[in-house]
């Protein structure tokens, strides 16, 4: 098991380095306009542009810029660890911008994840057990709706119905926890539900299909023949074996949402990491874009690692390979 974990850790490091290199190439080397021009303003002279390029460190060779960035990423810089540099726009440290925005995104993801996991797995189990009944059809219809409805539409409809028409205090924007649990949560309830609806649909379908497949296995028939209760057969024997794809998906979904819940963040004015990435990309604020991308990549890599380790516990065959 220790060897398995060690092998996974090394691969995680390799993946992070590869992403660092690719991201640097995409944002710094491929032609996307001159960031210095973006910050030079009206009618810049060549001297002004040269001054800006020097200040932003863009006048060094690419390999120097990459080496310096990589070194700071692992060793830290004057703003702390990891060293992500400073924003071209305003000179704020990238790390401070990420740490300011990250709680919004993380709370959004965590709350939505609890809802979609609970809802999705429950619906999937019920649907599998009551296969072909009206409950199954209703549940899968609900799942299809969640999968099909665009997130931005769901968000706008939720705001229209619950906030504007019904006058419920589920507002847009973000309040930190320090403003009180109620003030914090009432700004997140609608985004949680909207984001969870999409994933609940997916998880319900995957759980149903996976459980149905497992319930058809010989050992399940054996368990029933031995006289175990149906509840025990389904939840203890059936669901456990069905969880492998759920765990895989969950890890990846959480990691990708770290930088990718842009639409939900935009509709509900949460201004989390996803919005930070988009806004910075449009403004050619490359260090911020690179910082958020690296954070997402590390999150994906770490979650993959956790998922792989979880596999080893769930499925003994994995750790003996």
């Amino acid at each position: 098991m220790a060897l398995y974990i060690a092998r996974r850790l090394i691969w995680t490091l390799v993946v992070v380095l590869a992403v660092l290199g690719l991201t640097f190439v995409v944002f710094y080397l491929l032609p996307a306009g001159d960031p210095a021009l973006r910050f030079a303003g009206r009618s810049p002279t060549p001297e002004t542009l040269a001054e800006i390029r020097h200040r932003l460190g863009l006048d060094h060779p690419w390999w120097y810029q990459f080496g310096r960035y990589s070194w700071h990423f692992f060793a830290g810089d004057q703003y702390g660890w990891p060293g992500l540099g400073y924003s071209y726009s305003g000179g704020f440290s990238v790390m401070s911008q990420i740490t300011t925005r990250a709680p919004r995104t993380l709370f959004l993801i965590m709350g939505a994840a609890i809802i979609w996991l609970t809802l999705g797995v429950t619906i999937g189990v019920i649907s599998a057990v009551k296969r072909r009944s009206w409950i199954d059809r209703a549940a899968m219809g609900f799942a299809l709706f969640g999968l099909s409805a665009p997130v931005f539409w769901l968000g706008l409809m939720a705001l229209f119905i619950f906030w504007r028409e019904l006058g419920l205090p589920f507002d847009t924007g973000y309040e930190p926890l320090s403003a009180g649990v109620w003030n914090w949560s009432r700004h997140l309830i609608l985004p949680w539900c909207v984001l969870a609806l999409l994933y609940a649909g997916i998880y319900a379908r995957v759980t149903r299909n996976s459980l149905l497949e497992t319930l058809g296995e010989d050992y399940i028939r054996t368990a029933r023949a031995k006289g175990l209760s149906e509840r025990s057969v389904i939840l203890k024997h059936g669901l456990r074996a069905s969880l492998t794809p759920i765990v895989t998906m969950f890890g990846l979904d959480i990691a990708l949402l770290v930088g990718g819940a842009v639409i939900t963040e935009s509709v509900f004015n949460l201004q989390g990491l996803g919005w930070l990435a988009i806004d910075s990309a449009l403004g050619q604020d490359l260090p911020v874009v690179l910082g958020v991308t690296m954070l997402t990549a590390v999150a994906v890599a770490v979650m993959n690692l956790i998922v792989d380790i979880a596999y080893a516990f769930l499925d003994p065959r994995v750790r003996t390979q």
Partner: protein
Amino acid sequence: MVLLLAAVATAIGVAASVGSASSGSAKKSLAGGTYRIGWDTEFGWTDSFDPTGEYLADGFGIYTNLMLRTLVAYPHTAGPAGTKIVADLATAVPKPTNGGKTYTFHLKAVKFGPPVNRLVTSKDILYSMERLANPKDGGQYVFYYDDSELGAIKGFHAYATGKAKTISGIRTPNARTIVFNLTTAEGDFLNRMAMSATAPIPVEVAKCFEGKPGAYGRDVVSTGPYMIEGADQVDDSSCSALQPMSGYDGQTNLTLVRNPNYDPKTESTGRLALPDSFVFTVDTNTDDIYNKIKAGQLEQNEVSAPSKPIREWATNPSLKKLLHYNSGDGTYYVTMNLTQAPFDDIHVRKAMNLIIDKDGLRKAWGGPISGTIATHIVPDSLEGNILKNFDPYKTPGEQGSLAKAQAEMKLSKYDPGHTGKCTASQCKGVLFIQGERFQDTQMTPIIVADAAKIGITFKVRVAKPAYPVIQTPRKNIPISERPRWFKDYADALTFFAALFTSKAIIPSGNTNYSLVGITPAIAKKVGATGDLTNVPSIDDKYAVCQAQIGDARVACWAALDKYLMLNVVPWVPYLSAYNVYTLGSTVAKWDYDQFSGTTAFARVAVKG
């Protein structure tokens, strides 16, 4: 008789005191509250709210109305009255001496807000000018003060390039006096000194941000009626102790509260300063902003409203009175490159003006609610309405005229058969740069279809963003519908200087898209290629107008505008845009600041 006069005088006195008490009590009853503004998507500062580098209207609107006082300013109201220069920090608007080359200002006793808390001196204004000159501090509009460019303050360029330790053209004989010596008489020098970048900056705070453009934006020290919340908590004893003011987080929220050091008795620009605070909050959901305005959670949006809420306000009887239109003093246009075929032929450019459905282009922006059809370069408000009825390419309903366009095209060298259609190969597959906005996707098909009627076909390329592409002369872009231009201050020079002089042609960030006045030497420098043989220049006419003052100056600019439209034809102007504000029912008083083209925050009030 004496008794009668005394009675009349008493009556007048009583009436006056009642009037002033009424206006005073009216002002008092409007005072208080928090004025809340929703900001669409992002603040979009050009220099992170550092006044030295901010060059867009949003920043100017907040600075000039609420936070920063300049030597001279504007009355923060709409229309021509709003573009009249008045004294702000100066005791009076000075008359230039020395043949129009010397301006002497005497300062009022005005204090900086916290954390500086001392009187503003002439050296603070000198410092802000030096900061503007220093390329390491990210100054914008430097060309308005640089004596090597548009011609202004003596010694500015030498200081900016490190050849001098001071700006020789600025003297501070005492703490209350500052003198500017110019290289040539500049009729709009006072307008330039009303720009926010010239507001005094305390060196004890700003020195901590030398060489870090934008960083001062989180610690801007106020001289106006409001300051950034938390300014009084900042420790300016040393740079290491200096922290950002808590009321501005740099990206999502800006809160301004009353500046305790502001003395209304020194006010001469009409700032009323009625609300107790202003809160500007970024909202990434535009619909949400307007929903909140209707729900009474916000007073207004910061920028001109898009067409959807404008239509809603315009068609709702209870909201209609809360809809305000004002001239944005800007022109939207299709630009044509005079060095690139087929637009190197003036007849083709004129034909484009005659064929394009300008009314259709305006529809893309929301129709008549978005503005009036532009028929020449500079908005009428900047040219004293001299060209109000000037429409050299008039067509029925401004929807284009095939007959007129064909008649013009027949005169072109690209229509050798005189068929009224451009038959030369140079007219086929012409590169057309389309912008990234929603309206660009609506306008491009109109322009493409109209041009095809006179034989010009385009190869449309969408550039996201478009400005870096069209602002690079070596890319030789023939045509684009993306540009629009707004005044910097109420003088037409702010159009002509950057858009049509040969000096304005630069390798990157070029705004003379048409390359008017380009010479072979300039073309070589910027990498532009194409036909340079017939590109006219307006430099000499521009120089004549630049030296004028008063009505003669305005008339000169109008004449130059006319000349450009008839003899150069670099654009197809199509829209003189309005700035439209959709207010909430909680707004008790509102005005428009014609200088900045934004809300006159200095003159708003919110219901208690």
